[in-house]
């Protein structure tokens, strides 16, 4: 395991990362002023998705528990927020932390029985959760509006800002996402992050180090669900409408795809993953409605061959190859495989990255 890089190389890397972040911020801030309102709405949704994707990455990439049901918590967040706005007149900003808290609790509740399940079985149960979601929404139609869904008034831009509604909403969502991302960085770099990684890579070692597996894993579920909930609440605002159809199984699949495309156990990857699942289907259906899914599926599979480490993995590998670097020794390669945030992912661990689907890995 390696800490943050030291020396001049380190300072250059840190400086470059700072520059990168500033550039990203500049681009992000410029978007609402360069695109029409429809596109801006899509970007807003992408940001909301990124928050949710980040949550899933915390669960899968960092703590090694596989979940195919992230969409369920996403839906929960959307609906909590929508119901509070529509039925209780709660100001939309306030609904965000409430949705987050509700999903945190739900994740905690779900995380407890999930402790007993591994790999394949956790995947199946969470798959079940995702499938059951639209039905459960319809079942509680008194609250949720059932199949009709709920119309949620869109937040209006305050007069003093001089912004259009969609621009305001975009910037608001962006601000919320920045907060969530910063929180994640803090979690991952601190002792929580280290505990997660140890648990993911080697449970037995974790136990001997005194890490309480149950606590870490259920908390990972809770935190990941919280992120999904906040993402869901943010996602719903630009559309102004929620219905059971908004949360199909494909959404949970999409989140999973997003974390792998972006890069497991990375924070930056969430952005790429979210952009992928927001825009690839759009462009795919620009080509041909019916072909859209074919293109999406193919791109997904191709990504797994070409870039199993995700976009962030590619970025890291390119960075390691830069001409200024000394020819890498084996240790240096391993060090540079370490996560951009300073935590090692341990390279290609076929057995342990996710608590393996039993018998599945070493073929």
């Amino acid at each position, binding site marked *: 395991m390696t800490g943050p890089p030291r020396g001049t190389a380190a300072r250059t890397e840190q400086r470059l990362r700072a520059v990168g972040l500033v550039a990203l911020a500049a681009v992000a801030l410029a978007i609402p002023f360069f695109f029409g309102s429809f596109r801006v709405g899509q970007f807003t949704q992408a940001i909301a998705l990124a928050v949710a994707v980040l949550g899933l990455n915390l669960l899968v990439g960092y703590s090694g528990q596989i979940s195919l049901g992230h969409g369920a918590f996403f839906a929960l967040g959307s609906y909590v927020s929508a119901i509070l706005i529509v039925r209780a007149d709660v100001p939309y900003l306030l609904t965000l932390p409430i949705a987050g808290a509700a999903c945190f609790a739900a994740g905690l509740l779900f995380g407890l029985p999930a402790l*007993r399940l*591994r790999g394949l*079985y956790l*995947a199946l149960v969470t798959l079940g959760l995702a499938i059951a979601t639209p039905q459960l929404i*319809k079942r509680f139609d008194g609250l949720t509006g059932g199949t009709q869904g709920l119309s949620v008034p869109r937040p209006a831009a305050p007069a003093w800002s001089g912004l259009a509604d969609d621009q305001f909403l975009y910037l608001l969502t962006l601000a919320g996402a920045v907060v969530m991302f910063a929180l994640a960085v803090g979690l991952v770099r601190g002792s929580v992050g280290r505990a997660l990684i140890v648990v993911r890579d080697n449970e037995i070692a974790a136990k001997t180090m005194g890490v309480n597996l149950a606590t870490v894993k259920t908390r990972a579920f809770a935190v990941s669900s919280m992120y999904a909930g906040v993402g869901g609440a943010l996602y719903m605002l630009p559309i102004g409408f929620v219905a059971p159809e908004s949360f199909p199984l494909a959404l949970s699949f999409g989140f999973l795809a997003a974390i792998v495309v972006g890069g*497991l156990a990375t924070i930056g990857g969430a952005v790429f993953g979210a952009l992928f699942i927001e825009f690839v289907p759009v462009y795919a259906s620009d080509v041909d409605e019916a072909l859209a899914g074919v293109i999406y*599926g193919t791109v997904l599979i191709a990504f*797994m*061959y070409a870039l199993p480490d995700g976009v962030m993995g590619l970025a890291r590998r390119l960075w390691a190859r830069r001409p200024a670097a000394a020819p890498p020794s084996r240790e240096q390669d391993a060090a540079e495989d370490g996560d951009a945030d300073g935590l090692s992912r341990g390279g290609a661990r076929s057995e342990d990255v996710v608590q393996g689907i039993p018998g599945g890995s070493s073929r």
Partner: protein
Amino acid sequence: MERVVQVIVDGWATGSLYGALALAVVLIYRSTGIVNFAQGEMAMFSTFGAWALLEAGLPLALALLGTLVLSFLGGMLIERVIVRPVEGGEVLTVVIVTLGLFILINSGAGWIWGFGNRSFPSVFGDGTLAVAGVSVAVESLGIVAVLIAIVALLFVVSQRTRLGLAMRAVAMNPDSSRLVGISVGRTLMVGWGIAAVVGAVAGALIAPRLFLDVNFMGGVLIYSFAAATLGGFDSPLGAVIGGWIIGIAENLAGTYVDFIGADLKILVPLGVILVVLLFRPTGLFGSAGVARA
């Protein structure tokens, strides 16, 4: 009394359908440790293929035969081209690939045949048969018979043929298999081909009961996962028996218990999965290595 028998026989047939797809899933899981989330969609595609052959004028028997052959080839192709590159890699990568395959095949079918629904003829027809004084549908009996025949056939292949020996060896110890001269890759290809054929049979038997559309195998997949979980994910016999239990129990409950409405029916297989995993993760017939809870 007659009603109960009919309900049970029908449930047995439905359960056989779940079991058939579950069998395909378990076959692949046993030999490669991979859960093929796209198994249902592959079966759907095969069924559409059969429908296309029928539309082209082939008699039912030939259309089905042709479909089985094409499904076998298709299954082999998928293993060789799509799954092989990621086999043995990170678990999550493989999951994503099968999910990607799910999306690809589902949309592919939609692109080729559209998203509307159509009907598919039943191999067994609409007749009924009197068994011990009770009138039961021929189709139900036929479905159960087909499944039993498949299980028997697979058993013979597995236990008494060179191919079966190779497949069991590969599932047990791929490295030693290579050392004794077995081509692991080719054996896995055949395994996927066989699973695809079983899935195609399942699809052809299920389609007459529902409408044939690109999503018709989606719900069945969950039931099949429940059947496989109940039976033990690495036990082909377990998959079948698990399917039977779920099919019969569901039909009895649906007929005699009012509480589960149509829209919540999907919770039944989910409930089964949850209960099994919490109380007996290896299922009825699975081996101990399977769940490690």
